[in-house]
């Protein structure tokens, strides 16, 4: 092959990205586990991990810039490297959302949970599984698999709405629960945002594989009153 060095560099970059994906996936698991068990040590370790994840993202970005500047990739090579760059940014943000779960655990202290956690762990489970699927689609350059993952974002959205409604009823019954409700709502919100970021990754998978930029899961604007 005339571009062995280049191909090796791209493959190495892809491997690093998938490693970042694996680490990010683990942060979702740990975030919700810390929330369920109110484990402050785990929450703190999750927060401490974030700097390393950020470094991984910057390392990927830097290597991608260098490849673009020195190798002037075109066509599928260009799309692949741009996708790696953008997916790295999304993964780092997903890890930030997980870190937020850790911060919520620390903020809640010893305060009892407002309600047993059912939907929030379910949301984390879906988010983690979606991330695993989308990374798999990315590594196989499979646009259809990328698109399929994004359909699952609706499940996260409806669970989030459900959590929101439920917490609001608690607040309406007893306004003193507002802080505890907001902590849980904030946790659910972060998990819902993880779904959106995974959708963005799905869009990059489609772009890398097909060259088409398409926006997935566009919500219809609210009807005019």
């Amino acid at each position, binding site marked *: *092959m*005339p*571009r062995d060095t*280049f191909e090796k560099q791209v493959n190495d970059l892809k491997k690093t990205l998938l490693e970042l994906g694996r680490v990010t996936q683990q942060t979702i698991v740990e975030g919700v586990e810390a929330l369920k068990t109110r484990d402050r040590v785990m929450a703190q370790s999750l927060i401490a991990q974030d700097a390393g994840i950020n470094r991984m993202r910057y390392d990927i970005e830097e290597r991608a810039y260098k490849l673009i500047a020195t190798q*002037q*990739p*075109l*066509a*599928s*090579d*260009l*799309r692949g490297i741009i996708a790696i760059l953008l997916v790295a940014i999304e993964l780092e943000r997903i890890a930030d959302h997980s870190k937020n779960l850790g911060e919520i655990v620390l903020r809640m202290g010893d305060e009892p949970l407002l309600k047993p956690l059912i939907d929030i762990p379910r949301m984390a489970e879906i988010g983690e599984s979606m991330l695993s699927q989308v990374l798999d689609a990315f590594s196989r350059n499979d646009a259809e698999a990328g698109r399929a993952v994004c359909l699952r974002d609706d499940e996260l959205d409806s669970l989030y709405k459900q959590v929101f409604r439920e917490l609001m009823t608690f607040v309406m019954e007893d306004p003193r629960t507002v802080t505890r409700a907001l902590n849980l709502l904030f946790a659910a919100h972060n998990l819902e945002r993880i779904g959106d970021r995974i959708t963005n990754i799905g869009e990059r998978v489609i772009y890398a594989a*097909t*060259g*088409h930029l398409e926006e997935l899961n566009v919500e219809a604007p609210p009807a005019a009153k």
Partner: protein
Amino acid sequence: MFTRALSGNTPQENSADPQIKMRVQNLDFYYGAFRAIAGVTMDIPEKSITAIIGSSGCGKSTLLRTFNRMGDLVGHTRVRGSVTLDGDNIYDRNVDVVLVRRRIGMVFQRPNPFPKSIFDNVAYGPRLLGVGGKELEQIVEQSLRDAALWDEVKDKLHQSGLALSGGQQQRLCVARTIAVKPEVILMDEPCSALDPIATYKIEELMIQLRNEYTIVIVTHNMQQAARVSSLTAFMNMNPDRAGVLVEFGPTTQIFTNPAKKETEDYITGRFG
């Protein structure tokens, strides 16, 4: 038609599509028995830059030279198919080849100024057409301005063109080409002998010139094609070693998402 009476910059009435300046249809080009170009069909839009890319020896320059009948200058060559300018076939028997080359000018790979002064280089074509005096001076100045060279040479117009730097010489050649007011400018690797700064100057010049001229450029530099052209043609050799047009489309598409695997393999460097 390419009779002297009908020369001019206005598209002819019989042009099938006013947006299309040149139309190449089923073009074959032979050097003796060897077919160097096979079945090329492409439309070149007016006032835009069309790039032709492809590996060495695939027939890019040969194709470009068929666009103003430069191939005629080589013995034992023959053309099948047609190349039209504003709807008229430049290979028709009654066509005045000199007029074809006046309407379709050319800039070559290496700067090739005449061993004459800067002024005379640019004045050469207009003088042949009988222009002189103040009008000639105006044409020379305007052509040098259009070629983005005037400010650098205005005080030394009577120095030899060969004393200029490579990049300046190439812009002088562009000025010489546009002095006879062609409608199409063919450029065969115009920057291959230039350094990056001179290259960028020529590219900027091309971008400015495309408002007035139809430009077709052959280049090995894919980034250059990507930077300056709106359409890109990718050529390759078929098993008989004849140049064929593999893919022709918007430059952005060719460089980000080509339709043919052959194009993808070439532009990503996985060719051969």
